[in-house]
């Protein structure tokens, strides 16, 4: 049986667990609040274009040059499909959850930084793959788009984030002890 940082035969440290939950929620809410302070036009015209749309379009055109997808602000358009990146499509919610969990978990500073960097990179990479995959689904199998966009992809990304946190917290505890 696989174990996480709370071993099966250990009494749960209740105070620590409750304090973790409180800090986790507080950090997440603070990040969401800061995220909503970012103006829509900055996200749409600058951040989404450079961080999400342009790299995804480059990968799609590399994988299949016949697609001839164009990047325009937060839009990815081709003759076959058009996708718009809006708030929520950027993976920010998942990244904030992971960052909040890493911040809330009692661990050395260097281990936290490692958790941030690897975790953010992993979730951003997965989100880019999701957007690229959604483009091809929209272009070639449109009936699958809704269930994959609103059901499969979000729950899978959350599970990947949870797995990463479980692995990182185990690593952090091994460093701590």
């Amino acid at each position, binding site marked *: 049986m696989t174990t996480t940082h709370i071993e099966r035969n250990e009494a749960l440290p209740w105070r620590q667990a409750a304090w973790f939950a409180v800090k986790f929620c507080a950090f997440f809410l603070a990040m*969401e609040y800061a995220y909503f302070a970012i103006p829509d036009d900055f996200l749409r015209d600058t951040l989404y274009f450079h961080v999400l749309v342009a790299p995804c379009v480059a990968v799609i055109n590399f994988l299949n040059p016949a697609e001839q997808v164009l990047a325009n602000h937060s839009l990815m358009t081709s003759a076959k499909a058009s996708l718009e990146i809006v708030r929520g499509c950027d993976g920010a919610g998942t990244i904030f959850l992971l960052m909040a969990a890493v911040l809330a978990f009692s661990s050395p500073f260097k281990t936290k930084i490692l958790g941030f960097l690897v975790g953010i990179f992993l979730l951003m990479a997965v989100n880019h793959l999701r957007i690229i995959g959604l483009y091809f689904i929209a272009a070639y199998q449109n009936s699958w788009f*809704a269930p994959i966009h609103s059901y499969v992809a979000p729950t899978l990304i959350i599970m990947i984030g949870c797995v990463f946190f479980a*692995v990182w917290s185990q690593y952090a505890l091994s460093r701590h002890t």
Partner: protein
Amino acid sequence: MMPITWLPLAGRFLVVWALVAVFFYFAGEFIARVFLPWLATVTNMLAEYFHADLFIVPDKQGVVIKILARVTQDIYQYNFPIAPKGAELTAVGTLAHALTPLVIFFALVLSWPGSFKAIVLRVVMGVPMGIVLLSATLPCLLVSHIEGVFHSALQTVAKKEMPMPFIMTWVIFMEMGGVWLLPIMGALGCVAVTHPVNYKKPENID
């Protein structure tokens, strides 16, 4: 050196997620039909100006939950007329989207390591928790769609930006990640409560 346990852990989480996702994908409509009267009651508790009926209908996006809102009084906001009594509005929310908190919650409580007894206990606890999760998400989403129509009408007649109703702010927060925070917190709670079932007190060795 850290023990290499990440691969079985990842495999366990992802296999359980896949099974739970498939289960809710096929059983979701049945579950939604069972809880539809309760969800309609919660929706009406949240609705300030209208009476709501909920229906499960097929749609090009898949199965959706449709709200039919009948305005029960003339609506005035900030002294502006918004909608007359008797007006009817509809909105939809996809069932698949409504089920995502349940998929995350059950995937976590089932994949978290523990004894068989603890996992069964978590699933039993998960049923009321699942109802709470559904009640905190879907009715708010549907009511906020209708409130959004009133809010747009208000901004049109007022010709300026007007403050957003609280339920719309709540739904935006939920859609940006809150809808994932709730099942994670719920799962942590269930795991914590059932943890003593795993725990064996160390015997006294004199």
